[in-house]
């Protein structure tokens, strides 16, 4: 919610600011033939797709949005949706790679940021949305004794305080309505923080054949004075599995919360001035004004002496 609204604001501002670029927006971004014809040296296997997806999430998703959802930033020129059929048919692997490498206007150059291999892996991931060249995707539903596993999915979360770990157990619903463990389901583990959810346990992974996945809780993570934090697990692919999550309180590192305002110092508010300053200031003040007061009494004495 927050994210979409802020994106909207960003977008609107972006449109205003970047309208000067609109002339470029008219011209199409053509990649020269030779580069366009480069072929992808990286095999589009599960491992590479997974890595490509992770890289896409950290580097591309901000502007291009989730593939297929057309929720990229409204920059000018507008970043294409990476699952857009027109885009995918118009751009060969080599073209996508080149665009990523060189950048143009609002599209940054990733030459220095991502290695060549990493860039090709992202190309693989993007290509996986191409209906025409669909690469075999990972199996998400498990067949069991002729039954299909499907929604609703359930997720239970077990906390093991001794080894400070979490185990998520994912079950899907069989055709007959019974629950069965679901394997190969991507689970993410997080700790709730003030502004967002901090991924823990190596950013999660997929469940094993027993529908389980384990995640270590970073014990050095500060959790206030009690050393507590709210951890939760959730199934990453909301489209397939639905919005499924489970939470539990876990123990992390107890830290002392220092209230800066408890400190007497020169920079803090008046009432918290250092004692030495208070004594010095008022000491001198009383000393000097006391003497002046005495001089004034001398004046009265002077007057008396004249009578």
């Amino acid at each position: 919610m927050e994210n979409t609204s802020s994106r909207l604001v960003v977008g609107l501002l972006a449109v205003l600011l970047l309208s000067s670029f609109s002339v470029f927006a008219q011209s199409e971004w053509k990649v020269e033939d030779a580069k366009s014809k480069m072929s992808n040296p990286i095999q589009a296997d599960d491992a590479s797709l997974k890595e490509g997806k992770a890289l896409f999430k950290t580097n591309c998703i901000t502007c291009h949005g989730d593939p297929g959802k057309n929720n990229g930033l409204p920059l000018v020129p507008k970043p294409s949706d990476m699952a857009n059929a027109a885009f995918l048919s118009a751009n060969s692997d080599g073209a996508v790679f080149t665009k990523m490498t060189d950048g143009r206007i609002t599209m940054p150059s990733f030459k220095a940021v991502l290695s060549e291999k990493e860039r090709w892996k992202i190309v693989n991931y993007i290509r996986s949305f191409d209906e025409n060249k669909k690469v075999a995707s990972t199996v998400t539903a498990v067949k069991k004794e002729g039954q299909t596993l499907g929604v609703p999915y359930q997720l239970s979360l077990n906390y093991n305080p001794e080894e400070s770990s979490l185990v998520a157990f994912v079950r899907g619903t069989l055709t007959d309505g019974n629950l069965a463990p679901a394997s190969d389901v991507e689970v993410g583990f997080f700790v709730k923080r003030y502004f967002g959810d901090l991924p823990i346990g190596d950013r999660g992974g997929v469940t094993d054949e027993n529908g389980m996945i384990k995640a270590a809780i970073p014990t050095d993570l500060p959790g206030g004075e009690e050393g507590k934090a709210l951890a939760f697990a959730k199934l990453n692919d909301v489209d397939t599995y639905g919005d499924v999550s489970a939470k539990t309180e876990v123990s992390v590192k107890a830290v002392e919360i220092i209230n800066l305002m408890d400190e007497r110092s020169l920079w803090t508010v008046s009432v918290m001035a250092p004692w030495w300053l208070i004594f010095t200031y008022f000491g001198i003040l009383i000393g000097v004004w006391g003497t002046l007061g005495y001089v004034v009494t001398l004046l009265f004495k002077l007057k008396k002496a004249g009578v």
Partner: protein
Amino acid sequence: MSEKNKESKSRRDFLKTGSLIGLGAVAAGAATYAGFAYEGGKGHPKVPHIEDSLSETEQKIKVLTENGELAEVDINSLAPVEKDEYQTAIQQQGREGLAGKHWTMVIDLSKCRNARMCMAACQNAHHLREEQHHINVLRMQDDRNSAPYFMPKPCFHCDNPPCTKVCPVDATFKRQDGIVLIDNERCIGCRFCIAACPYSARVFNWFEPKEVEGDDDLLYNVELNVPQKKGTISKCLFSADRLREGKLPYCVSACPNGVYYFGDLNEDTVTNGTSGETVRFSELIRDNAGYTIMPELGTKPRVYYLPAKNRLFPFQFEGKTTLEDEHI
């Protein structure tokens, strides 16, 4: 005036104030639920849930929520609050800050391409004039032979702030969550803090502040410095009003390039305002060689920078890729 009369009058006042503030809330994005009972000095001002108010009692009023939607709430769930009382309450909570927090910002220089949306969002939120910058994107070059880069510069909310040290009236002060704020209702305009700040983070209202519609009806919010006041100081507030609502600062959310991370040092966590990605602060700093500006001054800034290496966008300003005597 009888007790009863008094009460009904204050209720009328409240209704009036409530609608005024409602308008203001949209304009300023401020947490101004006027009229809702303000309970306790710490944490969020308590806002009754709409479900709670759908009790058997009949009298309902419409209030504008923070998101700009109209909500109907039971008037009996609201405690009428006098304008002055409410003002005192927001001043009070503004001076105290959020307990247990120690805000920090991380600015990734490698991602900044001088889009200046942070500056625009900030000026808009704080009703600043065009030349007043709470955050300013500077063109920097550390040495004749080193590469130029863009450096967004907010207030660093130092833990040994030279500015609050010199203030003669406690108008600028540091609160428990580390934010250095300014009370424009108290500032005498001596500008000693401007002189004391080595980072030129402060601005002054040399003239009447920029005219923003609706400002006249707004209650002054010390966490937003709105409405701005002539003859007083203003500066970056880490969007204290937004933090109270659990939202990231205006500039952080406005950045299209993922430059800003913001979070709580006590949680060792920062969140990127663009991607929403949440990471460990200590890891981010460790892995990217994070640093603070001019640590030799001993101000202990709470804004960290990640070096401008592996830039996503090459440095370019007014058609040039180098700087001539801008800084060095």
